[in-house]
């Protein structure tokens, strides 16, 4: 039985046992290679749910962005490894009650990034996709192209170390624990090797592209302040232009606000219309936090988020005087 069939079966069971009022999953999108979030309120609709590499959306964002719709409801949710970490973080931060959610983990081997595909096909419409081991064949009217899986996967997935949920009620298959990932290490080594001037060059090159659409913020399950600092106008923290002078404030401060809370789901990078590598900085921050404080966002369900914790005897070599 494939994952989609198992997922549908699980949803049906949850509704017939009256364990959930609503279930969040993915369904077929209106275009090929796309999927859409799906809210199921009745077990009979279970057959609309799917799970495959198109299902990139991190559904736990609905708990923080528009949570009123779930007030008093028991919510079932299908989660990949990263989505589960978001959910754990939201539970730690008291945005979701653990008793009110039924977490269904799905085994994930990475999701595709539509932007990468569009770049490779030159924006031509893909109507058919065939997966064959490590290669993917895309077909459309008058063209056919075969790519390696790594060329179409989201860059966050290529650097993923937690492919499967660490906290779940039901898991559709065998949940893997933390895995090693040399791509992640390589990306970090590259950044760490840069001199301070080179780093600024890199920062500038990336954030110059930003058009301040805030898609990254809006799609981020960890970004849920009712008023973001970029929207405040008294005091105004950040100018209104798309010049790097302003965009760099937005990105660095956003990075710091989600420090120790970013689960590297890559939703921001997939949402970015300008193709900024938004995750690299977060990766670096997460690594530093792990090195210093020995914790990773969204892994333990007990306790508090790493940046809300402290130890009295922490290293403080940077203190003056």
């Amino acid at each position, binding site marked *: 039985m494939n994952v989609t069939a198992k997922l549908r079966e699980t949803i049906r069971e949850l509704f017939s046992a009256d364990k959930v009022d609503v279930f969040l999953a993915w369904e077929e999108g209106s275009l090929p290679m796309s999927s859409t979030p799906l809210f199921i309120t009745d077990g009979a609709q279970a057959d609309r749910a799917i799970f495959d590499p198109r299902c990139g959306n991190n559904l736990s964002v609905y708990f923080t962005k528009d949570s009123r719709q779930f007030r008093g409801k028991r919510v079932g949710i299908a989660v990949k490894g990263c989505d589960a970490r978001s959910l754990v973080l939201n539970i730690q931060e008291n945005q979701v009650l653990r008793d009110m959610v039924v977490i269904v983990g799905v085994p994930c081997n990475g999701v595709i990034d539509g932007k990468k595909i569009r770049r490779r096909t030159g924006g031509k419409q893909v109507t058919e996709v065939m997966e064959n081991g490590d290669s993917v064949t895309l077909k459309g009217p008058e063209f056919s192209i075969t790519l390696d899986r790594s060329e179409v996967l989201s860059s966050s997935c290529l650097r993923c170390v937690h492919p499967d949920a660490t906290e779940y009620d039901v898991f559709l298959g065998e949940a893997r624990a933390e895995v090693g990932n040399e791509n992640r290490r390589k990306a970090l080594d590259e950044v760490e090797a840069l001199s*301070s*001037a080179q*780093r*600024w*060059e*890199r*920062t*500038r090159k990336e954030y110059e592209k930003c058009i301040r659409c805030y898609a990254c913020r809006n799609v981020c399950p960890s970004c849920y302040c009712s008023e973001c*600092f970029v929207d405040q106008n008294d005091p105004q*923290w950040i100018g209104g232009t798309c*010049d*790097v*002078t302003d965009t*760099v*404030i937005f990105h*660095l*401060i956003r*990075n*710091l*606000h989600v*420090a*120790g809370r970013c689960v590297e789901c890559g939703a921001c990078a997939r949402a970015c219309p300008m193709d900024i590598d938004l995750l690299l*900085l977060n990766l*670096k*921050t997460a690594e*530093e*936090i792990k090195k*210093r*404080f020995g914790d990773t966002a969204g892994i333990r369900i007990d306790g508090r988020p790493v*940046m*809300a*914790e*402290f*130890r*009295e005897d*922490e*290293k*403080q070599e*940077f*203190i*003056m*005087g």
Partner: protein
Amino acid sequence: MNKEFVPRITSFLCKWCSYTGADLAGTSRLQYSASIIPIQVMCSSRVDPVFLLKAYLSGSDGVLLGGCHPGDCHYETGNYHTRRRFAIVREVFESLGLESDRLRLSWISASEGPKFARIANEFTEEIRLLGENPTRKSIFL
């Protein structure tokens, strides 16, 4: 024209310790660098990273954050959170190409007027050696 470089150091000082320490330095008539521009905050953990970045990008040559000694926080744990956050802030600011020596955190208690004066002078001297904040020379980065 060769004008002597006088650094401008924005300082966020916690009301209960560092600011009171600065006050003590003043009432004790200690001489300390006039480069320090103090801003009182209720707790050092009240300082969001955006304050530090804004101060830097608005032309401060250095940014000083002052709080109570660990264990002495008026709110019991505020400065522990500051310390944890500050370690990460320094890390992230490096991607700005900013020398993280321009950004300092110090523990100064209410009774440490002389220490405040010393830190103020030392930091001013350090910044004088580092030179002007490079972003001051341009309107846009």
